[in-house]
């Protein structure tokens, strides 16, 4: 598609380099939920590094405009465009790059990020990307923007050895929500993020570890994200206290793929977080097998550090599928974690405290899953007393072992320009999605309920809700 721009050259360009924050058009203008308002730590970190080193940049956001023409106008006059592309922002990323080239034919576009890392061939197929950077960018970005011509089209990025070397991110370098109406509606205290149902706002999102060491076949991020030292506990606490003094923190979201790892770090967190901060409630992720392996540590974290939204990638309630996914967790591990959280929740509730809740990640529609496997997953979910079931149909993302396999076999229904957008969520050929729709609608509940385990926690309470309703 061609553009013809009716306006003249913009005079308000301050710097030569422009970052574009990616997401769906209008998400920072009229969002329909908190998930459209998350901010991007990769962009924030790299922009901070650049500004700390005197390489100043401006920012625009596809989320802060409602039409590409508006973005084109904002992009006019820049020499270089930078962006962080993930698979789910690949469509917007390529469109933004093309728009930039239309208005700045001599401009250079450099794109890095997770999609560049796992699917560089798809990125390289887009002419508008002059350089594609695989891997981390902390140690590469400064030299690259100074002299891009010295680099090949596909660049291997270099990262820091430890997150301890990362500067404290300047959150005011993130894009702003547009208009007071939406700021008031979401009580958004930019640059902190709005409340999303996991704890009171303003929300401070932080990252304490960069990569999860496990190897689940649908994810296995450690095969493409280099490992690096965890951010020291003191540094995390200093940052949170700084944010609290400056903006006022309501609750925390720890965005780590795997927060519940490295017991030594966690013990230090238990010792310091309650004493040195205002002990905000937080959201963080764990695994069922390690909860079973370190139950005391887990319980202390929940109770003493106020870990109140516990995200666990249970994925399935069937050993057969868990094995297929190389999850390294068993049905027993899952039930152990569920019983423990149900019990701690009851105890805390009895003391008048807020109980911990599960953010329970579940996958359905995994190739090879039988009806009975799926029933077991639903039984497991029904065993959780306080839960938000975050259910996805399995999506073959490039980067993951299973994703690559299904793409190679021609079974993926996710197309290059349509990642994660397939209207009916049907992502793999040959999966009976109608069965899953009926399953989630409760149509197989009689069969599912028959097989429910009878224990003191969980399931019977769900039945209670059923009767009351």
């Amino acid at each position, binding site marked *: 598609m061609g553009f013809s721009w009716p306006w003249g050259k913009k005079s308000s360009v301050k710097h030569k380099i422009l970052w574009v924050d990616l997401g769906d*058009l209008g998400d920072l203008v009229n969002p*329909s939920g*908190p998930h459209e308002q998350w901010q991007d730590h990769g962009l924030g970190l790299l922009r901070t590094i650049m500004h700390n080193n005197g390489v100043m940049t401006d920012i625009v956001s596809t989320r802060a405009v409602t*039409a590409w023409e508006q973005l084109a106008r904002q992009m006019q006059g820049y020499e270089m465009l930078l962006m962080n592309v993930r698979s789910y922002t690949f469509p917007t990323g390529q469109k933004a790059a093309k728009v930039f080239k239309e208005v700045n034919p001599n401009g250079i576009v450099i794109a890095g990020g997770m999609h560049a890392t796992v699917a560089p061939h798809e990125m390289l197929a887009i002419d508008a990307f002059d350089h594609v950077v695989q891997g981390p960018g902390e140690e590469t970005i400064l030299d690259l923007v100074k002299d891009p011509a010295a680099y090949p089209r596909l660049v291997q990025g270099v990262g820091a050895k430890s997150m301890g070397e990362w500067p404290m991110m300047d959150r005011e370098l993130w894009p702003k929500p547009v208009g007071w109406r939406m700021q008031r509606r979401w009580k958004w205290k930019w640059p902190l993020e709005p409340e999303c149902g996991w704890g009171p706002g303003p929300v401070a999102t932080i990252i304490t570890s960069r990569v999860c060491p496990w190897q689940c076949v649908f994810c296995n991020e450690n095969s493409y994200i280099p490992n690096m030292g965890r951010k020291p506990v003191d540094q995390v606490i200093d940052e949170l206290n700084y944010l609290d003094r400056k903006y006022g923190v309501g609750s925390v979201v720890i965005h780590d793929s795997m927060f519940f790892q490295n017991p030594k770090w966690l013990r230090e967190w238990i010792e310091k977080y309650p004493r040195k901060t205002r002990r905000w409630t937080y959201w963080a992720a764990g695994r069922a097998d390690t909860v079973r392996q370190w139950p005391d540590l887990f319980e202390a974290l929940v109770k003493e550090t106020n870990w109140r939204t516990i995200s666990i990638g249970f994925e399935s309630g069937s050993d057969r599928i868990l094995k297929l996914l190389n999850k390294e967790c068993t049905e027993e591990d899952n039930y152990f974690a569920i019983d423990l959280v149900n019990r701690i929740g009851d105890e805390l509730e009895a003391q008048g405290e807020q109980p911990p809740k599960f953010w329970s990640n579940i996958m359905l529609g995994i190739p090879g899953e039988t009806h009975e496997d799926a029933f077991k997953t639903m039984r497991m979910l029904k065993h959780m007393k306080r839960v938000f079931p*975050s*259910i996805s149909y399995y999506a073959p993302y490039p980067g993951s072992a299973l994703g690559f396999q299904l793409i190679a076999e021609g079974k993926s229904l996710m197309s290059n320009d349509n990642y*994660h957008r397939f209207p009916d969520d049907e992502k793999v050929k040959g999966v009976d999605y109608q069965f899953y729709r009926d399953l989630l609608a409760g149509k197989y509940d009689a069969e599912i309920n028959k097989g429910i385990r009878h224990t003191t926690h969980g399931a019977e309470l769900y039945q209670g*809700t059923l009767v009351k309703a």
Partner: protein
Amino acid sequence: MRLNDAQRSLLVALQAGDRLKVHRTLDGEKRYLLHRIDESGVSAVAAAVVDSLERSGLIESNMKFPAATFLLTDKGIAAAAKLTGSTQMPMGPRNFG
């Protein structure tokens, strides 16, 4: 909250297993579409109806990107059951709010 016809029929449809999704296009269009459980049809739902049910805590977004799906909350399930007399319960958040 007193429910109007549009709000009521949406709750009833969700209880029966229809799925309310936010559809996005690359050009910034945002539409709320109700998908019949058997994929036999899709109908548009006014943004104001979705917004009002969300604000009153009867439905909640699953926060998926970019096409979120809305789920009935405990309160939404109870309201729908009162309207239909049916105990069918689609999977959704429990004691989460």
